[in-house]
């Protein structure tokens, strides 16, 4: 009951202060940018110069597949022409496909851009045509798709996990510490400390406020951007566990300091470190171990999973469970520390 009353009081206080409105306002701004500024899909602006020495039907199959993926394709009549074109256009790729002794030889001239994906598109379309035209045809080279059969999200949806990670999950880290130092400054923490209510009531009610704020901003953003495409139940479970983790970590860090100014540095550093995971999230090619071991790394992919048509439940709930367990550990540690230092 004391927990409930503390929570209700803290909710009331938070509605009388700015933060919760800032957080919701921020969610709305994010939504507005996503819907009105960012196109649903950003198409790669890459020009392909191709010489395909095969019958017309293969040619048009390859052309169709590439332009569907957003490439700009120009057909040329010889290998030499391809080479000279790409030499003068930096972000272009070259492609020469020719039959040789019953096999098809793919010759890619790439300049480092989306090489694997590009190869797959070409192979798949040309070989697809082979299968259609000559049922008996068997390819000697195998087609490997790098991304497996993972669904591709639209650009907007793909950005949503980063917002959820920073705002719904980890913002509490900072704010909960600020709330505690505010109470310390106002002295109300001392008044609370001389009642029969327990320290963990105090801490948990603050976490409750963070959770409500996190859920509000996370759901606002998701409803507008993903609409019916998100799996809300799993998403909510994930936000609850991650938000609890974020604020418990914030409590733990705050327990080492007696003013916001002193705690600020550590809180800031931890947010920045956690945010690094977003880099690898957008550039899978750059995912060194130091980033993959950050808690925010699996978190982003778990959020993304809840936006897929088919959710990898094992992955999502491994995250829910793991972060919830970590939250409990940090909460217990904070409670232990704050019992001694809350009123000092």
């Amino acid at each position, binding site marked *: 009951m004391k927990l409930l009353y503390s929570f209700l009081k803290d909710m009331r206080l938070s509605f009388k202060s700015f933060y919760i409105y800032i957080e919701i306002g921020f969610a709305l701004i994010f939504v507005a940018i996503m819907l009105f500024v960012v196109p649903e899909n950003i198409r790669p602006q890459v020009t392909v110069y191709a010489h395909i020495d095969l019958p017309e039907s293969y040619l048009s199959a390859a052309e169709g597949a590439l332009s569907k993926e957003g490439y700009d394709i120009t057909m040329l009549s010889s290998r030499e022409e391809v080479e000279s074109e790409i030499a003068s256009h930096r972000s272009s790729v070259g492609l020469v496909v020719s039959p040789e002794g019953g096999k098809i030889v793919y010759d890619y001239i790439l300049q480092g851009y989306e090489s694997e994906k590009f190869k797959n598109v070409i192979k798949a379309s040309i070989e697809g045509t082979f299968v259609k035209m000559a049922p008996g045809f068997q390819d000697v080279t195998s087609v490997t798709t790098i991304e497996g059969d993972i669904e591709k999200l639209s650009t907007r949806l793909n950005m949503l996990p980063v917002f959820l990670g920073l705002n719904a999950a980890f913002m509490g880290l900072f704010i909960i510490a600020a709330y505690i130092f505010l109470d310390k400054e106002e002295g109300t923490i001392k*008044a609370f*400390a001389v009642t*029969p209510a327990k320290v963990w009531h105090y801490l948990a009610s603050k976490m409750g406020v963070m959770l409500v704020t996190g859920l509000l901003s996370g759901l606002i953003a998701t409803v507008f951007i993903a609409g019916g495409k998100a799996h809300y139940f799993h998403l909510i479970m994930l936000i609850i566990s991650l938000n609890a983790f974020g604020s418990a970590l914030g409590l733990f860090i705050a327990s080492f300091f007696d003013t916001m100014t002193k705690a600020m540095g550590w809180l800031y550093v931890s947010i920045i470190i956690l945010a690094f995971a977003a880099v690898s999230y957008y550039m899978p090619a750059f995912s060194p171990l130091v980033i993959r071991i950050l808690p925010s790394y699996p978190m982003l992919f778990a959020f993304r999973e809840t936006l897929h048509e088919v959710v990898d439940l094992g992955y999502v709930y491994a995250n829910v469970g793991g972060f919830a367990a970590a939250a409990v550990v940090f909460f217990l540690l904070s409670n232990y520390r704050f019992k001694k230092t809350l009123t000092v």
Partner: protein
Amino acid sequence: MIKVEGLYHSYSHDDKYAVRDASFEITRGEVFGFLGPSGAGKSTTQGVLTGLLQLQKGNVSVAGYDVKKPVRKMFNKIGVSFEQSNVYGKLTALENLEFYRKLFDVPTRDAMELLEIVGLDHVANQRAAEFSKGMKHRLTFIRSMINNPEIWFLDEPTTGLDPAIASEIKDIIKREKEKGTTVFLTTHNMFVADELCDRVGFIIDGEIKLIDSPRNLKLQYGEKLVEVDYRKNGGTVREKLSFIDESDRRRLNEIVNTGAIEMMHTKEATLEEIFIKVTGRGLE
């Protein structure tokens, strides 16, 4: 109700003690005044007794609970008013009290009634942030009595209040005392102490110098003085003379014999004067 033995406290966890080897006992229903100049260690002692500061060294028991092994239930029995008011500025006076009430497991007093006692009922629904210093102080004060505490800790309850309100607060404390509440009262106002306290303790630089009742202290240290106004050479002269001092007594006789006395009255030493005598220091 309160028993303190060999209490030491150092904020820096070294041998710079804010309180040093304090020992005293307060019995049920007693009003104990803790007197001393600024920085003497009064609030520090109250902090340890109320569990806000960790007990580092010594034995302290409050309301039958050993402070070394804190139990939250203890706080049902005690009330604490702070020297710096600490209420939620964003909540109204009434909301502050209503929230606080719910944190106790024992019957609590009606919030509106408490506000009335200190004349805050007309601003019950105003945010505490808009209150004056004295209003916030009164709110902090009444909050401390919401759970009908058996032991009431009051840190400077009258400091910074205008005389009318200060005297109201004094009356409230008197009434609670009559109900049998034990009071630990910290102050550097000797008049408040003299009027309210059964016993007082003098503390200076973290050390308790002396504990006794105001009456005993006056009997022991307060020499009786007599103030005489008499006519001399067309004007009026005032002299302060001791009943104890031999030459003062002779002088008094002389003045009486001249028959020129206009006014004469005896004067008791104040607690403040005794404090200065005992500790060699003033209170401010």
